[in-house]
């Protein structure tokens, strides 16, 4: 009986994504970034820096001078890594916007795949301890004086969106009322050389779902959001989390399932919890890395679910793959997409290059939007699906 009640309670607690920020090559706040996306401006560029990588690569990199300037205005002293500066800059804006005091009821979740991995380089001026993800959590916690220790999640490329559902669970369990989530990863030789060894790295802007795709781009962002159960003082673009699902492919550690099994199961779980029909989904913000295996797997999963007519995009053509931050970054853009009633173009898309039909958004258009599905997949066979619904019906 006790369990039954608890289950009922957790279903009744609505959880929202509210104030948010993106620090990226397309701007240092969500509105600027989304307005650049609206104008189909990509943050990707060809980078030829032999210090960083032995061959030229295409990436979206945050301008160091701009980052320094933004950071100097909030931090007076202390030695911070590049990733810490990005995360602090991003999270600071969200904390300022929400005006929530950081009491014992406020949690902090950090999602990243590699954190301060650049410290392992022998030329780094930081001590090796700083490369441990727990140290990153402590730096962020101490900077803002959170009362609780950071919960660091590192679950490959689904980390960013997984972090949001972890926040939701902490809130429905009654442990926290508000949770700040900050996600980030940086472009490093460590990552570039790894993806290059998979022969997956493209030297051109990526072309998700296209016939002539050339592989992935690695990019960097820091993204932050407030996850809350308080329905007053929400951001205008706030959304409610209707349901989530996360299922492993149980198939391969680096390649996605050929049948899209884990993704199909994830979406079904999310739909079951959301208690909506698939007809209610207005838009899919997909993973779309621009590798043949990933894109094909998604197309198969989407067709198995009967979602092939729902408008879909990949935002990798704007930022590249931002690893542990990508899920949160793309969720935030999705929130703005709903609020603006606008479907953003899947930049880089040319001629369809997957075996099953999907409805790729080729041109930014306005359309009445209410509910979107975010999906992500990653190494280790992980998949994630979350369904979000907009709160503010009187959008612009």
């Amino acid at each position, binding site marked *: 009986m006790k369990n039954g009640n608890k289950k009922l309670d957790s279903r009744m607690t609505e959880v929202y994504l509210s104030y948010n920020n993106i620090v990226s090559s397309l701007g240092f706040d969500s509105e600027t970034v989304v307005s650049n996306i609206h104008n189909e401006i990509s943050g990707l560029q060809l980078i030829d820096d032999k210090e960083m990588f*032995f061959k030229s690569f295409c990436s979206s990199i945050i301008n160091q001078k701009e980052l320094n300037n933004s950071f100097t205005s909030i931090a007076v002293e202390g030695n911070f890594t590049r990733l810490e500066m990005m995360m602090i800059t991003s999270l600071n804006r969200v904390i300022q916007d929400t005006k929530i005091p950081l009491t014992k009821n406020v949690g902090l979740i950090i999602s990243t795949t590699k954190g301060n991995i650049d410290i392992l380089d022998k030329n780094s001026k930081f001590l090796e301890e700083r490369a441990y993800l727990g140290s990153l*959590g402590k730096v962020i916690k101490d900077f803002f004086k959170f009362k609780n220790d950071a919960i660091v999640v590192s679950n490959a490329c689904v980390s960013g969106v997984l972090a949001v559902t972890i926040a939701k*669970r902490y809130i429905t*369990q009654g442990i926290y009322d508000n949770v700040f989530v900050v996600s980030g990863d940086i472009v490093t030789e460590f990552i570039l*050389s*790894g993806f290059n060894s998979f022969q997956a790295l493209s030297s051109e802007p990526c072309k998700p779902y296209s016939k002539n795709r050339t592989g992935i781009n690695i990019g960097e962002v820091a993204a932050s959001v407030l996850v809350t159960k308080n329905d007053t003082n929400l951001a205008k673009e706030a959304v409610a989390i209707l349901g989530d699902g996360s299922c492993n492919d149980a198939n391969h550690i680096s390649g996605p399932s050929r049948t899209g099994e884990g993704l199909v199961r994830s979406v079904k779980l999310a739909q079951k919890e959301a208690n909506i029909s698939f007809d209610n989904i207005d838009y899919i913000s997909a993973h779309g890395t621009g590798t043949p295996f990933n894109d094909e797997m998604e197309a198969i999963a989407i067709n198995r679910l009967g979602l092939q007519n729902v408008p879909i995009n990949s935002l990798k053509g704007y930022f590249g793959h931002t690893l542990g931050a990508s899920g949160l970054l793309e969720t935030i853009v999705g929130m703005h997409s709903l609020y603006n009633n606008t479907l953003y173009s899947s930049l880089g898309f040319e001629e369809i290059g997957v075996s099953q039909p999907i409805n790729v958004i080729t041109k930014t258009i306005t359309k009445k939007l209410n509910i979107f599905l975010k999906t992500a997949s990653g190494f280790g066979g*992980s998949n994630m699906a979350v369904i979000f619904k907009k709160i503010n019906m009187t959008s612009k």
Partner: protein
Amino acid sequence: MNSNYYISSFCSIKNNTISLNGSMVYSNENMEFLEFIKAAYKSLDTNYPKFFKMDGLSKLAILAAHVLFKNENINQDKDNDIAVVFSNKSSSIDTDRKHQKSIENKDDYYPSPAIFVYTLPNICIGEISIKYKLFSENSFFIFENFSAQHLLDYANSLLSAGKTEKVLCGWVELDGNQYEAYLYLVTKIGTILHSKENIIKFYNT
């Protein structure tokens, strides 16, 4: 706060000893980690050749899961609705160092996908999911120290939200020659309460 869930069994690998529910199942002193884990694999009749391709962290995790799941009679030939919630201190630092070494010298540059793929801590969960057909939720958390409270809260949230039938929880840590694994299975029926006290008690067993 306790829950109405239970710990059905637990396994630990530390100090060159593997134990199940507090009883030793294998021990081999005076060996370095990789040598020890390989000797244990052979002695425990694991029969999973993929083991040899794995990095140290995955070897540690999969062997602990093997001992636990064998005791639980988990059938590897059908789907198992078991979520996995792991944690550690050092993420995949051991393999990260290997990959870093392969790119440190421009005249001796040898990054390899077989190593790079293991530079994520959750790959060990992927390995367990493949072996035991776990099409279920998995999360990898990083904490400076073992956090019974977090594992308790998170496993309870997955079970009470109806996301899974069982949760495989634990701590799998590897950093150089320092290693430690502690896994336990949380179920809806049983006798030993899934409580912070019990999680800590078995961790210290």
